[in-house]
């Protein structure tokens, strides 16, 4: 029997979070969450002030992805809650563990259109893994306990806890439960030995097998298993964009991400393959192009923790449901037991190697000194391999996918599912809080950075020195590229005209602002940023006309790549 203690709901919230190991909360206070905020005065949890609730949620998201423990964000009711919604939806789309705690108007005022009332439970329903709204103070500890459990187990996701103000203020006898039961939630499944054995058979009998690693491989940290299987069976590895860096991108078997802006070699090999071991992927349209073309002539072995992903976008010949790391471990073990080890060069793997080296050498790049590829390769060259990189959303993000090689698995994060502009910078702040020991860089574009640039205040005042690496083409570049490609160069609503001046902007926040207009300047700027202990913005003017290529147009197949001419 757990000991009972009398306290108010807000204190119970903080106590329960401390029991979950929470060390910091990213948030913004307001009328309806003041009782929770008051508790920061009496507990060891650090509060990190964001300047917008959306940023607070992305910080929690970045923290969660890097630490694999739920990041926590706080917002007040009404607009605070609706602002945080974008961050919740982003976390849901990318299966990121998060706890969002919102204040709500007092229970008796719910439904009365009270000041700063929003039905956040109703609004958030389709984009949360689960939501709680404790109606009495005594329900708070259980909501927190279950919330953390749901957020971090199985396929991770965001959990919303919406707490009416009177529930925060009221006293109750609190029990902090260790044990609990959720009847309809069973995230753990036993490893599927039979299916794994079949998967090995299918891979051995395939002529042109390939591994497709998705985000699930990163979430479950299946790096060692993945590499062992690829090397043992001599399987080329492609990834989804979310799976980028599940496998070292300098490995000779690695071809990089497939998809709309996938690597040419990855898209080529993926379309030629006859059997795929797909690990933790939902086969998003951005990764596979048209669903019908992708699954044609392809035997799919689909490993995923979420049974609802099996057969949703692609028909699998074989499903292996469960934590992918657990099942991959079984596969490694079986391969060892059966003493299966491919060493000789098959015609397929020879072809893979040729394709890889052909495209590594022959993909046409921007001819200028400050082309995206050169800039990102310079960044790669100077960043220690354990550095964590986040990205914003847009052209720079896809250039990062193409030209920034992830060497150490699990060090690259992006808003890949929802594609939320403004995600990268606050997520980098959250990532740096999780890993203060490594450099954290947000690869940004000027358009996307503009959406949450006021997080510079958080980075400076809270002493979280991240680097924002802005490929600045003064344009909403990805939209501009589509307008150039599909709308006959009618450029509408994309010109940002170098406004603001990001060096001055950084300086106005007390951050370091550097501009790099040549490779020499870039080299210096990156080194300066890495050696300073204050948040730094590196502004890198680039050609507004540079396109991201290769490009698989929406609604077409991976075979129809548009290549640089």
């Amino acid at each position: 029997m757990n000991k009972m203690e009398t306290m108010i709901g807000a204190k119970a919230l903080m106590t329960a979070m401390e029991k979950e190991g929470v060390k910091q909360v990213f948030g913004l206070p307001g009328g309806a969450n003041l009782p929770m905020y008051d508790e920061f005065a009496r507990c060891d949890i650090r509060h990190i002030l964001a300047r917008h609730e959306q940023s607070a949620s992305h910080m929690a998201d970045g923290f969660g992805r890097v630490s694999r423990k739920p990041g926590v964000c706080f917002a007040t009711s009404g607009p605070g809650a609706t602002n945080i919604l974008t961050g919740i939806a982003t976390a849901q789309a990318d299966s990121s563990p998060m706890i969002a705690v919102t204040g709500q108007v007092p229970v008796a005022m719910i439904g009365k259109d009270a000041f700063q009332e929003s039905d956040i439970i109703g609004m958030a329903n389709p984009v949360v893994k689960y939501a709680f709204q404790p109606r009495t103070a005594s329900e708070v500890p259980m909501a927190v306990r279950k919330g953390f459990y749901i957020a971090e187990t199985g396929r991770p996701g965001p959990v919303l806890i919406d707490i009416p103000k009177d529930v925060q203020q009221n006293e109750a006898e609190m029990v902090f439960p260790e044990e609990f039961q959720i009847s309809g939630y069973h995230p753990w499944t036993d490893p599927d030995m039979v299916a794994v054995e079949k998967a090995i058979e299918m891979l051995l009998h395939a002529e042109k097998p390939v591994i497709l690693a998705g985000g699930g491989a990163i979430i479950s940290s299946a790096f060692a298993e993945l590499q062992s299987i690829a090397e043992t069976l001599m399987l080329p590895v492609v990834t989804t964009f979310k799976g980028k860096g599940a496998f070292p991108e300098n490995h000779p078997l690695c071809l990089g991400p497939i998809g709309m802006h996938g690597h040419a070699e990855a898209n080529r090999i993926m379309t030629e393959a006859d059997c795929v071991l797909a690990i933790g992927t939902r086969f998003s349209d951005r990764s596979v192009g048209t669903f019908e073309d992708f699954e044609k002539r392809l035997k799919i072995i689909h490993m995923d923790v979420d049974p609802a992903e099996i057969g949703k976008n692609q028909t699998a010949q074989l499903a292996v449901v469960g934590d992918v790391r657990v099942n991959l471990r079984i596969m490694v073990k079986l391969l060892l037991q059966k003493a299966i080890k491919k060493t000789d060069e098959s015609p397929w793997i020879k072809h893979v190697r040729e394709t890889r080296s052909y495209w590594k050498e022959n993909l046409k790049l921007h001819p200028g000194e400050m082309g995206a590829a050169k800039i990102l390769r310079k960044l790669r060259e100077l960043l220690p391999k354990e550095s964590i990189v986040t990205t914003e959303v847009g052209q720079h993000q896809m250039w990062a996918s193409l030209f920034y090689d992830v060497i150490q698995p699990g060090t690259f994060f992006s808003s890949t599912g929802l594609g939320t502009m403004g995600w990268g910078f606050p997520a980098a702040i959250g990532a740096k809080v999780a890993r203060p020991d490594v450099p954290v860089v947000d690869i940004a574009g000027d358009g996307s950075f503009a959406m949450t640039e006021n997080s510079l205040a958080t980075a400076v005042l809270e002493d979280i020195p991240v680097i924002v690496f802005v490929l600045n083409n003064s344009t909403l570049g990805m939209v501009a590229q589509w307008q150039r490609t599909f709308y006959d160069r009618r450029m509408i609503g994309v010109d940002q005209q170098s406004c603001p001046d990001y060096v001055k902007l950084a300086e106005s926040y007390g951050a370091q602002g550097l501009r790099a207009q040549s490779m020499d300047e870039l080299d210096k700027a990156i080194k300066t940023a890495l050696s300073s202990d204050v948040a730094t913005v590196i502004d890198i003017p680039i050609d507004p006309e540079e396109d991201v290529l290769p490009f698989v147009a929406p609604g077409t197949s991976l075979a129809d790549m548009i290549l640089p001419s």
Partner: protein
Amino acid sequence: MWSILSLLVENKPGILFKVTHLFRSRNFNIDSISVGITDNPDFSRMTITTYGDEKQVAQIVKQLDKMIDTIEVKQLDEHKTLFRELSIFKIKLSNANDSMEVNKIANAYGGQIHNVKKDSIMVELTATPEQTSAFEELVKPFGIVDVARTGVAALQRSES
């Protein structure tokens, strides 16, 4: 393909909203839905009839199963299931014979007569949706003033 889904769900506020929201956001269809209490006060039973091809229905079942508030989701085999729908018809009476005619049809379908007035009559029917629709066709010529159908309730029959 017409399918009957039987869901055992947590008996908590907002669950019906979540289930119907899932259908809407995943682009599935609800043909009918009925919700009621069970012998266990913690759970309610939802019976949903839906249509879609085999792949779609399989996906609906998986998505419903994934919901944390659903305890159990079953796609019922029509041939091994007892399913009934309650409906109430208000039918127009135009002449003296109509009342008798409606009575006859209602009898054939096991319907009960209620609220007989000079110009209208009410029939309560418990039947399969198919039978109910057939009944509706037969009484249409008289003029249907109003219909209320509950959607089906269903349970799998025991095997032996």
